[in-house]
Each structure stands twice: as C-alpha cells, then as structure tokens.
C-alpha cells in the first residue's frame, strides 16, 4: 500500500494535462486499477485485519481522489492563464482617443483669476472693447489734455470713439447701470498703440471694483494680498504709492520675485520684486460722476493677464500669446 501511494505521488507530480489525470485515475481507481486490486487482496484476511485494511484502503482511495481533483483544478487554472497570456497586448501604446486639445494660457489665467474672485463673492461683468472717449478717460477723471493720457497711447476710431486702453470704463458702465453696492471683476481685451519686445498692441486686463459702505484702503490690501498669495503661492506682497487719475490713494503692488526668490535676477531687474497690479481707492470725482451717494466708497484694481500668465508659466516673450503656434498652445491642455 505504501508503494502504491509513492507511485501515485510520483505520477501526479508529473501530470501536466487533463489526459494525464484521466490515465492516472484509471490506473489507480479504475475497475482494474491498483486500488481495486487491493480490495481483492482483502479476501484472505481475518475480520479485525480486514476492517483495519479496508479502512486504510479507503483512506488511500480518498487521498488519491482528492489529489486528482486538486491537480485537475490546478491544471485548468494554468491553462486559462496560458490562454490569456497569448492575448497579451502592449499596454504602453497610446490611447485611441488622444486628448490633444488645449485652452489658451490667457483664457486659462482669466478662468483661474475669475474663480478666485468668485469664491469671494465678486460678480463677472463684460464691457465694450470699442468705447467712447468719455468712458475711457473723462468719466475716470482723465480730462482731455491731462498728462496721464500720455501714459496710454490710444487707437482712435473717430474723435470721440476709441479702442479702450484699459478695462476701467467697465467700472463706469456698471456703476451707471447698477445701484451700489457692487463688487465685480471684468476681464477683457485692451489696446494701446505700442509694439515692441515687451508690449503688444492688444493685451488683456482684469478690472476689479468693490463699492460698498465704509470700505478702507486696508481692505484693498487684504483682498489683493490674499488673491496674489492664492494665485502665485505664498509670496511676499508689498504696496507702493503710485498714481492713477481715477483712484486716491493709489498703489502699485509688487510680489517677491518668483523667479529668483527675491535675490535679484534679470526678470525683476535685480530688485527682488515684480510689479503685478495697480490699484487704489476709487477717486471721489469718479463716484460723483456716476452719482453714487456719499456714504459709498470702495476700491478698484487692474492687472495684466499676459504678465500673470508669463510669470505663472515662465513664458518669456509676449509675442508667443498671439502667434498661436500649435507647439506652444498644446502645452496648455
């Protein structure tokens, strides 16, 4: 009996196919199989011995049956695996549907800026790109012959109509049509008669205006500092006195240079700071021009979208925005 078990174990260990299993099964458990032969040998034994011997044969039989079933399952698993392996593909090949499109970095930047201000409760307004001189200048406290007009070389359509030189006319448009309080930003294209390495005759600005009761210069500092820290990461922000005819006090806002970390480099002209925003408390004359009641005041700001995009994405030439080279655009999917 011991030899039979040994023989079986040797055979089953070598078994590779279901056919092998079948043959082994016949050899040991078939009608003329080795186990059946053993039963036949029982005839010559005494009762006690028969009982003992029978028990052992049944044990062996059970053992062989179980082993065969196990082996069979194993073989099936291996076969299945083998057939799947045969269907192998190169999973590193590119997908059928490539996601090759892209959103222009200017649009991406505007969307990001909008999202930040919207989360603070600012509305989004759009203005006209072709504007009256009155809205672009006069209502903003820039009368004709004001030297500040030199700061912005203007494209004219006729004597009274021009391509807006900044998004600020939207301030007037909105305040003329809405009662205070108002709080909105307004992104859009603006135009200046200027073209060189750092200037494009068309570029984009985002204007912001918040008018309510009892708004302070400190609020302007708080809102813009937080905005800049969200947009650029945790950078130092500083406010510097400046001049815009339509705000008083006015400020220019610098962030610590994100290229050199404030140590000084070519981008920041070795100052460690980058000028990114102009802002101020809305000039009393402007509020008077739109007939807002005295108890209302507020702040306004304007930023250059190209500048923000250039700093954020490390773009070094403003021309790239308007050439629309696909190799450039596709980097912004």
């Amino acid at each position: 009996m011991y030899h039979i078990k040994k023989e079986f174990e040797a055979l089953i260990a070598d078994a590779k196919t279901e056919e092998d299993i079948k043959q082994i099964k016949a050899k040991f458990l078939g009608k003329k199989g080795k186990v059946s032969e053993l039963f036949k040998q029982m005839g010559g034994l005494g009762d006690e011995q028969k009982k003992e011997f029978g028990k052992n044969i049944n044990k062996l039989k059970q053992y062989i049956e179980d082993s065969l079933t196990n082996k069979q399952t194993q073989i099936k698993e291996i076969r299945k695996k083998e057939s799947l392996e045969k269907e192998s593909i190169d999973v590193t090949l590119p997908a059928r549907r490539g996601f090759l499109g892209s959103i222009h970095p200017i649009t991406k930047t505007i969307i990001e800026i909008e999202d930040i201000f919207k989360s603070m409760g600012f509305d989004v307004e759009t203005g006209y790109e072709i504007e009256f001189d009155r809205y672009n200048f006069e209502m903003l406290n820039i009368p004709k012959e004001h030297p500040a007009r030199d700061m912005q070389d203007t494209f004219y359509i006729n004597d009274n109509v021009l391509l807006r030189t900044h998004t600020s006319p939207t301030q007037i448009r909105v305040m003329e049509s809405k009662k205070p309080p108002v709080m909105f930003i307004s992104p859009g294209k603006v135009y200046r008669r200027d073209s060189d390495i750092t200037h494009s005759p068309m570029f984009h600005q985002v204007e912001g205006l918040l008018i309510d009761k009892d708004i302070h210069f400190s609020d302007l500092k708080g809102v813009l500092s937080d905005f800049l820290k969200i947009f650029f990461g945790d950078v130092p922000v500083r406010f510097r006195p400046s001049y815009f005819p339509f705000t008083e006090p006015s400020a220019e806002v610098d962030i610590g240079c994100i290229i050199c970390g404030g140590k000084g480099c070519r981008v920041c002209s070795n100052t460690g700071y980058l000028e990114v925003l102009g802002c101020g408390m809305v000039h009393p004359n402007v509020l008077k021009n739109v007939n807002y009641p005295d108890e209302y005041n507020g702040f306004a700001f304007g930023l250059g979208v190209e500048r923000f995009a250039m700093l954020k994405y490390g773009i070094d030439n403003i021309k790239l925005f308007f050439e629309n080279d696909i190799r450039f655009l596709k980097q912004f999917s």
Partner: protein
Amino acid sequence: MKVSYNWLKEFVDIELSAAELAEKITMAGLEVDSVTKIDTCGSVVGEIVDITEKDNLYLTKVDIGSEVLNIATADKNVNLHDKFPVVKEGALLSNGVKISKKKFGDFVSEGMMLSAEELNLEDSSSGLLKLDETLRNGMALSEIDEFNDYIIDIELTPNRADALSILGVARDIKAITKKSIKYPKMDFALVEKNIKNYISVKIDDYKNCPRYTLLMADVVVKPSPMFIRLRLLKSGIRPINNVVDITNYVLMAMGQPMHSFDFNRLSGDICVRRAKNKEKILALDSKEYELDESMLVIADSKKPVAIAGVMGSEESSVTDDTKTVALESAHFNPVSVRMTARKLKLHSESSHRFERGVDPNLCLTASSYAMSLLEKYADAKVYMGYIDQKETEFKPKTIVCSFEGINRLLGSDFEQKAVKEIVEYLDFKPKVISIDKFKVTIPTYRFDIEGEADIAEEVARCMGYDKIAPTLPVVQTSFKRKKPVDYAKHQITKTLADMGLSESVNYSFTDSSKLKLFSKNEDEFVYLKNPLIEGQDVMRTTLVCGLLDNLKFNMSKNAKSAALFEIGRVFFKDGDFAKESDRLGAVMWGEASFNWIEGRRFYDFYDMKSVTEMLEKLFNIEFLYRKTERKFLHTGRGADLFVGGKDVGFIGELHPDFYDYYDIKFDKNMRIILCEVDLNSIAEYVTRVKMFEKLPKLPTVVRDLAVVVDKSINASDVKRAIGLFDNVYEVVLFDVYDKLEDSSKKSLAFRIVLKNDDKTFVDTEIEEIMNNIFNALVKKFDAKLRG
C-alpha cells in the same frame, strides 16, 4: 528724471546710502528705476604740458603726477595746461574698450584722454571732458566729489510735477526722513542800470501766461565750471556755455524753466501773444516750426523769439558774443503748453515741466538764484529792478480735513499727532480747528492735492503703506448670476479643448484688404484712424481671417495639421459707434489622425460638423443647414447655419480660389474647413431647460432598414421622415454607400429602434410598421429596397 545723489545732499541731509535712499523714496511714491554709480574707469587728472600738431592730430605730453605720458588726440580744443581725465594703456573703459599703445609715426601714444561719453555721462560727446584747473595732477577722479557720485533715475508719475527737480525730490526726502531743506545762497550785487530803461513786457493772453518776469545783466560768456557741466551731464542735459548752462542748472535744481535772450538781438519790447497763422520760427534745435493761432509765443516788435514754455528761437539765443542777457522766468498754462508741444511734436525739459505744472510763485526765486550763479560764473553785472507782469496773486488753497476721515479711508489707526507731524513736514501748515478737524494750506507747487483723499494718500505714503494692516472688507452679499453668453463661452471652450481643438487668441484688428474677401458688407467696417501698421487697419468682422493667419503660420513651422478655435469679439459700425458680438470660430486642416490604430486620415467636413453638433447638443438647439451663399466657401461643401430663421453662421470648406489669397497650395486631401457661429444669437437658448423624456416602459425592438435613393437626397431628410412615426424611438444612420451600379444613387442604412407603450409588440405589428416606414420613404424620396 535723473538726479545726482550728491546734488540732493546739498538740499537736504541724507544719512542713507544711494541704494537705501532709492528704496526709501520708491516706497514713498517716487519710483526709482535704477541707481548707477559713476564709473571713472580708473582715470586720473592729467595736465597737457606740451602739444605738437601733426596731420590733424595733436601729439601731447600729459602730466599725470607720477609721470608724463605721450598721448595723441584728435580733439582740436586741447590747449596747453588744460586738464582732462586720463587713463593709461591697459585700462578698461565701461564700454568694453581696452586701452592699448598706439603708434603714430615715431610717437607712441601711451594712454587716452576721456570725454563724458567714455565715462558714460552722455550718449555722444563732441569733445574731451575738461576738468577744473585747480585739481592736482594724478589725482584719481573717483576721489573728486562730482565723480564719486550716483545717478538715481526716478520714474515720476504725471501728478508729481512738484518733484521734477532736485529741490522737489529733496522736499520729499525731507518729509519722509523728517529733516529740513537747505536753500542755496541767492544774493547778488546790482549795478547802476535799471531794467525799466531798457525793456518792457506786455501780456496779451493772461489765461495762458498768468505771469512773466524778466531780469537783465551784462555777462561774459564762457564755458561753465566743471561742477555745473557735470551736474547737467548727470541730469542728461548737454552743457553749452555758462549762461545757458546756468538757466538749465536752475531748471534742474528748482524746477523753474528759464530762458535767456541775447538782449542785443531783440528788437524792441517783449509781447506775450498768440502766434499768427503760419508764422514761422527757427527754434534752438535748428529746425523751423510753423505756428498757428492756438499757440502762445514770446515776441519782440518784429517776430516770435520763443515758443512760450517750449523753446526759444535761435536768432535771439545767447552766443559766445553775447554781452547782455534778458532772463525770462515765467508761468504758462499747462494745457496751452501741452497742446503746442504736441502739435509741433517738440518736447523739451521746459515743456515737460510746464505741461505738468510749475509753481507760479517760483519765478523770481529761480531768477535770483540764476543771477547769483551768473554773478559768480559769468561775471554778471545785474541791473536794478525787475519786470513782473501778472494780473493776480497766486494764493495757496486750503483744505479742511478730518483725522477720523483719513483713518476711515485708510483703515488705519494713526494718531492725530503723527498725522499732524507728517503734514507739517510736507509744509502743508496744518491748523487744528476742532476736536477732529484741521485745516491745511497747500503749497502752490502741489497741483495734485485737491481734497481729503489726497491728504490721506500723503499721510499714508509718508508713513509707509506697510503701516496699514491688511483687513478683509465687510460687504453686503448677494448671489451672482452668470450671463448666458459667458456660460456658453466657458462650456464651449472646455468642450472644444476636450474634443481636440486648441484655442487661439488673435488681434481684434486685421488687414482690410483681406477682410473684404470675407465680408458681405464693407460699409459695416470699423476702421482705425491711427493704425500702428497697415495690415492692422480695421476691426475684424469675422474670426476667420485670424484663424487662417494662424494656420498659415503653423504651416510655415512644418505643422502637419491644425485644429484651432477662437472665441472673441467681432465689430460692426453702428452710426458713429460700434456693435460688438461674440463669435466662435474654428479651422481644421491636415491630418485628423496619424497613429497606429487608425493610420493616417485627413480632416474633412464631418470633423468640423462635430463642432456644430456639439453646439446643438450643448444648448439644445437645432441648426438648419442651408446651401451656403458665402462666396469664400466651397459651394458643394458648405452650409449656412440657421436657428429660428436667423443666419447665425456657417460651416464648410474654404473655396479653392481662396487658397491663393493666403498663398497656400491647394491639396485635395488636405482641405481647409472653417466654421463660425455667432454666440449672442444662440445665447438666448442657453438657459432654456430641456425637459426629461420618459423612457419606454416595455422592451424596445431593433430593426435595420437599407434603402437606395437618389444622391441628391439629404440623408438627414430621410432620417427625419423615419423619425416622424409614432413608434420610432431612435434612428441611427449607420452606413452610406455610393458605389452602386447606378452611380446616381446611394444606399442609406438605418438602425431603427421601435417602442410601444401599450403592449408588447407582436411580429406582425413590427412588420406593418416597417412596411409603413418604407412606403413613406418610397413616396417621399422614391426609395427602393437595397437588394
């Protein structure tokens, strides 16, 4: 404006280094662009002790203290005992030039005498920089105060006319650092001649010339002393002679533009009047200007001798022969000067200041300062008396402010005492008039101060904006509704990018000759009055021009394909104004795919149609595709798009003729497909809600139907006809075959999903429905079953 650090120190005590000072005034509103230390290139004082002329060259011996060098120079104005900055061979100039020995015959030049140009003090010099004769030979220039200096370049905002001088900047430094101003000496002796016996002044136009003063003196014209020449150079002004230099020196020092006339070249008395039409004047820049009646001139009895506040005439100017000068110090209306300077395209240091505003009370102070300098450096004998023509006094304005109001505007907590102190240092002479109110008197040089907000800014900038802690505003909140067009723009941008198109951004102006090819109506064009370049002279009425430019650009960069879109404004003339509309434009060209699965496929009409179908799905609209009437589209492969009976855009291939205009070779595989849709026209549909449609209650049944129809029949019409049947739930066109034996026919195969809400279909019912459908197609389109 460039200011010398040392010169500033003469007007106010400065304990800060030049760099620290720059930082300090930048943070107080005088933005410093750059601080440059003067590079003397290691030069020393050298005295010419011998000169020989040879072939237009001067071979000199120059004593530099420790030795005498041989130096050759081409400058004719070298005289024995003149002193110049000298560098020896081996020295490196700041322009990168290295000095080496040069041979001129037997003469070996061992160094170089320098001009202001080589010391980076001006762009181009006409001669060597003459030094004071009192300087010790061999002394390093870097040890001389005027050379051991920094030039601080300040970018002044237009409101700060008061700071357009050394004194002006010093006043700000004084206020910020709490010091006091040191005024220069301005006294001089008088001679026994009275100006009133020589000249009189009449003002015809007090509005544009509120004040005109004149002083006279006999002078000796010669070069200015070194410190005057150097200070002018550092300020970017070229030295001429002592008289002219001193008027410029005072202009830079105090901000009062002045003009010196050669008295003997004037004919009769002075009149300040409007120019006559077409009156001409030869100005000091040697150019002739034609004037008109809007311009103010200073005239003698014969002709204009100066364009008021802008520039004097050459014929009345001071020359080397001048013996007597009449010194003008006047006040002109900023607008008048600005208009004149702009019309003549003539800008000067003088007009720059008058345009922005010069203190009307400064005239006589400045001319006294000038006279005291002329006495010292031009041997001036000043006449008694002066002419001072004006109609009124120029009184400072007063403003009443509230301490609380200032703090409220700033969100600050500044103490009354601190506010008062700053205002005092600004020379605003504060007077507290009640527990919260104070009155300030604004000096007549501060044109920018009008009200409390301005005073608040002054306080804030002198305190430092960093002294105001950031806060967040308390506001009345409200919900904000996104505008339909903005909503549409965002949705479309995101979806098109997902679909594989790249967004472009183009200039809003374009080439009118190109735009005419694409526009039905040139009368609608909005032209620019002053375009920057010829090819950007008109506002676009379509996005197509820009997109085709982009395509062309990318082709030039060897791109094999392009699928671009743009969302932007187009502009149409509307009387004197303009109408603006938001458009979506797209262009496709080249390889739609080039990959291992699909191989190579080119963009065609149906790729672009996924854009219009996307719009239909996104906004629940249905375009009517009508045969195009746009001349730039392929007549057989283009459609005009209509929604609600309105033409809202187009889709189609570019007409083969148009490839020429863009200099693109027509390739029948690589067609250019365009699309444009007016977003404002479809915006009204954006907010419309599409209601839920009930799902079929019972299992649906799917049947296929293939029919043969004439090629001219639109598949969409056939599909729509099938969809009309009540039981039809969905129709999918899954095959179009046009290579039939009869070449005028095509086969269309549809998968039709049938539903029945009442009961489960029985086969005979299905057959009946399919027969009805087929019969309808036979009737309507003369369809045949595909055999």
